[in-house]
């Protein structure tokens, strides 16, 4: 119950803060809030695999980056009027966000299906190392793939469009991202209560039990992994659109680690945990980054303290024990 209250306060803040920033004429703060919302979306994706499914994926940057490159590739082709493909049928680039999102979601879901099917042959520490390795594989692939910028990445000149909105106006783009986050949170909340959610949660706690009642846990976890990758991929497309830039760094292992930090700082398995974690991270980055160039030291110490002494993250601290 208190978890819901904390969540409601977070959402109120996410609505109120940019309105205040708009009134105070601080467009930079709106961009900062947009960053937090998009990163929160990426973390909500990971939370589905990690918090609900117990799958410690240290390679979610792969899906984040695939979403980003889906944006970069489609938009750069639209920008240069060169089709992506001419044979056997023509595929043109696009500047339309809905189309880009669809491609981002499908591409990252497909990647998650492949990576998940291989990684889920193993469990525990093998799973962690393998997801990390596959993430790194895509990172090096992007670096060596010179057709789309290689190490330097891809820039686009103008943010992509959404029907009826001027996405170049910070607050309008922010609103769009927030609505997506809310829709995905609602999806996540429904999922937790669904038959699938019940089985997935039980499979995290006692896989043997779930198999014993006749449910194939690996398929269950693979489905969660694919959904999770798709959500993180969508966040990647938005993130690239926010920066109008995509580079291999979106695929790096540090990115995977950061997405995981959002989930854990906020509280794994809790609906609003990743949102709280991402907001905290962006706020810390902004505040401490302004004080010291070496703010990662503080971040590291904070994370260490949370892991060693605060079980259940910030939401856990505020809302008490889980459920």
């Amino acid at each position, binding site marked *: 119950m208190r978890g819901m209250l904390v969540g409601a306060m977070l959402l109120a803040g996410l609505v109120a803060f940019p309105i205040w920033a708009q009134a105070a004429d601080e467009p930079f703060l709106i961009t900062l809030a947009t960053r937090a919302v998009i990163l929160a979306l990426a973390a909500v994706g990971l939370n589905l695999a990690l918090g609900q499914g117990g799958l410690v994926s240290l390679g979610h940057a792969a899906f984040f980056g695939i979403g980003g490159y889906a944006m970069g590739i489609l938009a750069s082709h639209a920008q240069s009027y060169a089709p992506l493909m001419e044979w056997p049928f023509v595929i043109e680039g696009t500047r339309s966000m809905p189309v880009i999102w669809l491609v981002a979601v499908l591409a990252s879901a497909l990647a998650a299906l492949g990576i998940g099917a291989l990684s889920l042959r*193993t469990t525990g520490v093998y799973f962690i190392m393998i997801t990390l390795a596959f993430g790194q594989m895509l990172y090096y692939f992007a670096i060596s793939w010179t057709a789309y910028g290689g190490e330097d990445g891809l820039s686009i000149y103008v943010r992509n469009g959404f029907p009826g909105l001027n996405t170049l106006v910070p607050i309008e783009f922010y609103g769009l991202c927030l609505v997506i986050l809310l829709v995905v949170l609602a999806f996540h909340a429904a999922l937790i209560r669904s038959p699938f959610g019940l089985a997935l949660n039980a499979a995290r706690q006692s896989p043997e039990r779930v198999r014993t009642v006749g449910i194939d846990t690996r398929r269950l976890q693979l489905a969660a992994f694919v959904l999770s990758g798709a959500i993180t991929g969508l966040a990647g497309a938005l993130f690239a659109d926010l920066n109008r830039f995509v580079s291999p760094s979106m695929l790096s292992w540090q990115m995977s680690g950061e997405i995981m930090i959002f989930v854990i700082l906020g509280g794994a398995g809790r609906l609003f945990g990743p949102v709280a974690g991402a907001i905290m991270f962006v706020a810390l980055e902004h505040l401490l980054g302004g004080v010291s160039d070496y703010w990662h030291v503080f971040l590291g110490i904070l994370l260490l303290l949370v*892991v060693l002494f605060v079980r259940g993250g910030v939401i856990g601290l505020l809302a008490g024990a889980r459920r």
Partner: protein
Amino acid sequence: MPPALIAEQILNGLQFGVMLFLMAAGLTLIFGVMGLINLAHGSLYMVGAFAAAAVAGATGSFLLALIAAMTAAALAGALMEMVVIRRLYARDHLDQVLATFALILVFSEGTRWLFGSFPLHLDIPAALKGPVTLPGGIEYPRYRLALIGIGLTVAGGLGLLITRTRLGIRIRAGENDREMIAALGVDISRLYTIVFALGAGLAGLAGALVGAIQSVQVGMGEPVLILAFVVIVIGGIGSIRGALVGAILVGLTDTLGGIFLPEFFRLFLDPATAANLGASLASMAIYILMAAVLIRRPTGLFGARA
């Protein structure tokens, strides 16, 4: 392609492989004995490289630099173990990942703070500079040959340590049954610190040795760490022999893939496309190798059956 070039590339792959082994051996020992996944192992590699660069800069002696690298990394490892790591043995892998990720942040930024962002330079010792002519007329850098020698010597020494010494017996006992060796009166917490420091020292040695042919900089450890993970996954967690075989497989695949894949594609594609496609695939070759091993044997080549 001339045979001399192929031989040179095989040696390069071997050299890369034995350096990976130094990293992977520590990781796999630590996992085997303590059940801990340590992301900060790459930081110890970096600590070794920086210590070596600093000592070599001050004294001019490469040997002293290597000793300093191992000592500094082993001390940093022991400290890390006593302050943070030992609180994590009873935790799940997620907590271990996060806490050791946090350690990376602290070590990386701390090193940047101490030494600045510019790469340091570590020179190859004069005695090992220049090429050496191998049987068959192959010219090969003397230093890289020395790396292969050092790596294989350490591998052999580690094998002897594990099979022949009292410490080794305790380590193997610890892998099999933790309660048992505690019951036998072995100071388990000291054993853990020693194993951790041993692994750290090996990582530090690797960092210093490789630092002389690449640059010594913050963030140098993590790419190697992830490759070492690939090595362990291929070889099987907990197995030193698996780590050696896996490391050499990965070293050879990576080096030879980079040379042969573009050549291969040139057979039926235009040179530019072939170079691009070859380079892209080569960058993924070791991960494809890993996936192939996983499909055949989910617990690695030498891993215990799940």
